[in-house]
């Protein structure tokens, strides 16, 4: 999601100008201050981040025996706890795969729920090791907020949801409609651009959170609800009568969502990046959770599968991981395609088609660099 795109810029810059004087203070003391005010919290970010970056997250995670993974506070299909408190979802699967690759155990994950506002601070401060929270890869987040996006696990875009009874079939017919938007997000700007480009008018209703927007939309205070198309599908799945609402065909922005880590820790970034690539390559090569045990037992005929699963070469060693790292990652919840189908695919209530997220061999954008 494109929430609070810039809100951290000022946190980050705040930490820059005052961080210098705080760095020297004891970390424990800083943690206490952090809870007191946002301002002081922002100051401590720099101090903590500086300490973490030097240490090397990969070694930290191995020493801790647990991966701290930032996820949403609950978006069905992407990351949400079930009745037993067990997290599952599309983003959660990425966390579990990384934990399996690094630690050999897909359950060695501490899930940290983050909101649109807190997610970047949590990552920058070292509270979490990686963030897998449908976060849009943008220039300013990559360059200015100092994060590294390791890849894209879902190509999304901003869409519109409307009640079926309105009889609207295209967003271009929305002239004069009242639109609910989450304020302070890039959706607000995309929306203004779309309506302006099509020379039609609308009335924005700025709303602070997703659940509040959902409530307003269902009460009829707005005709249309707009956010990322995947978010709309997930929100609609929680409605009493999901069939009464349609997603309009227009996608008005690019929202590549992917996991991210802190800037400057390349070993850790590589570990997360190639775990994601391993899931994608596994689908491309036909390695599934069903046949992975057979395939990894001994070297087969396909050298790339052999290299991926560690039966040939020493890719794992280069990453600083065990030889069977990719096998462990894929074994947790299957390859990219399996994860997609299980959590958000067409057989689930969310019912998203692969579309742009099909393998490049099927005309989609999902493409991993070779394992070589």
């Amino acid at each position: 999601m494109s929430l609070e795109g810039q809100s951290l810029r000022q946190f980050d810059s705040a930490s820059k100008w005052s961080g210098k004087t705080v760095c020297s203070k004891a970390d424990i003391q800083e943690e206490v201050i952090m809870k007191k005010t946002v301002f002081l919290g922002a100051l401590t970010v720099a101090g903590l981040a500086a300490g973490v970056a030097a240490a090397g997250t990969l070694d930290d995670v191995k020493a801790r025996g647990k991966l701290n993974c930032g996820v949403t506070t609950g978006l069905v299909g992407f990351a949400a706890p079930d009745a037993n408190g067990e997290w599952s979802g599309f983003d959660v699967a990425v966390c579990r795969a990384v934990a399996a690759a690094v630690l050999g155990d897909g359950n060695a994950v501490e899930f940290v729920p983050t909101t649109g506002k807190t997610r970047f601070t949590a990552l920058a401060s070292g509270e979490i090791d990686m963030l897998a929270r449908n976060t849009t890869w943008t220039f300013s987040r990559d360059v200015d907020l100092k994060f590294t996006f390791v890849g894209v696990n879902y190509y999304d875009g901003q869409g519109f949801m409307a009640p079926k009874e309105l009889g609207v079939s295209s967003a271009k017919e929305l002239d004069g409609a009242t639109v609910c938007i989450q304020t302070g997000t890039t959706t607000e700007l995309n929306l203004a651009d779309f309506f302006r480009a099509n020379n039609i008018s609308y009335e924005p209703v700025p709303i602070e959170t997703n659940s509040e927007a959902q409530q307003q939309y269902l009460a009829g205070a707005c005709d249309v609800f707009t956010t990322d198309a995947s978010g709309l599908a997930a929100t609609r799945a929680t409605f009493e009568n999901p069939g009464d609402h349609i997603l309009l065909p227009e996608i008005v922005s690019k929202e590549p969502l992917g996991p991210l880590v802190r800037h400057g820790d390349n070993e850790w970034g590589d570990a997360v990046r190639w775990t994601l690539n391993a899931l994608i390559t596994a689908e491309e090569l036909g390695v599934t959770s069903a046949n992975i045990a057979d395939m990894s037992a001994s070297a087969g005929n396909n050298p790339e599968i052999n290299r991926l699963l560690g039966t040939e070469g020493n890719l794992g060693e280069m990453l600083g991981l065990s030889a069977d790292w990719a096998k462990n990652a894929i074994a947790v919840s299957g390859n990219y395609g399996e994860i997609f189908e299980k959590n958000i695919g067409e057989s689930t209530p969310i019912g998203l088609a692969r579309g742009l997220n099909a393998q490049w061999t099927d005309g989609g954008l999902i493409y991993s660099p070779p394992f070589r």
Partner: protein
Amino acid sequence: MTITTETPQESFRLSMLFNDTRYRALTFQAIALLVLIAAVAFLFSNLMANLEKAGLNISFEFLGAPSGYDINQTLIDYNSQSSNLRAAWVGIINTLLVAFLACITATFFGVTAGVLRLSNNWLVSKLMSFYVEIFRNIPVLIWLIIIYTVITGVLPGARAYLGETPDKELLFGLFAFTNRGVYAPAPIWGDGSGIVVATFIASIIGVFLYRRYATKLLYDTGKLLPTGWPSLAILIVPSILMFYVMGQPIGLDSPDPLANRFNLKGGIQIGAPLLALWFALSIYTGAFIAENVRAGIQAVSKGQTEAAAALGLRPRRVMNLVVLPQALRVIIPPLISQYLNITKNSSLAIAVGYADITATLGGITLNQTGRAIECVILLMLFYLVISLSISSIMNVYNNAMKLKER
């Protein structure tokens, strides 16, 4: 004078700065001031140096850049290509609008509840203390959300009014009450409407003059002229006559249920966020004002009321002519701070999606440009200027009302 010149002046020694009580206080104040200046200077230079190092500088250029977002309630021309400064102005005007409306209604609620709370009628006075205690002791944000939720939940959707055969008819064919706001007809100013408006303004002045005349007559001769119905007649009759003489130049543009498939179009729309914020601020602050009014009335000694009653004044006149004018001296100073509270509390607007200055400049603009320091400085400046202005205007009124001491 002569004594001091004759006393031989003891020569000043440095140690006297600490030992002599005449200088000691000054010395410590000077030291404290120097330390304070040094601390502020250090913080400021630290800020500037680090901002510079980070490649950031304080710059207000973003105010001229296009804002890129739309706002739902704009009293001045605005679209997404307008500048951030324009968006801030839209927010400022929206803040002032809701603050102004809420000050008026809060005063009305407060004075009514405050007077009625002292009523001899048990039920009325208990009802009023119930109102005061309920609204004063629950945070205004909660009231704001409750009221907005009630508006969106209870009132029908806009679509109920739309189409050839709507589920709901417009009230008198003019008004619609939906969960998106209230739609009312807007006047259309035709040729000659200026004369009608001028007549109406003249009538208002006329009413004022008539009432002054009535008061003067009362004081001079003791003759009591009726003020109620003549005022009303002076206010309305000439304007209506002129309206027909000029050939009905002012028309009504009522909300049109057929123009759009989503919303009523035409007329004036008072959005649900404005209504919710206006009502929540009024009813919440009204409870505080009620307490101020009660305190003011109780501060007027009982002897005044009894003396007025002894002169044969009826209870309403006792209140209006004797008690309230004296009570105002006690009421006004705390009233000023309640008005300031309304203005400052209006910054909760974003909770219901009302585009005030905090939502535009301090919300979306800040988020999209990342210019936090500049936006917050401007916000602080705005609220400071507004609060001081309200305060000074009310102080003028307070000076006019206070006991004239000679």
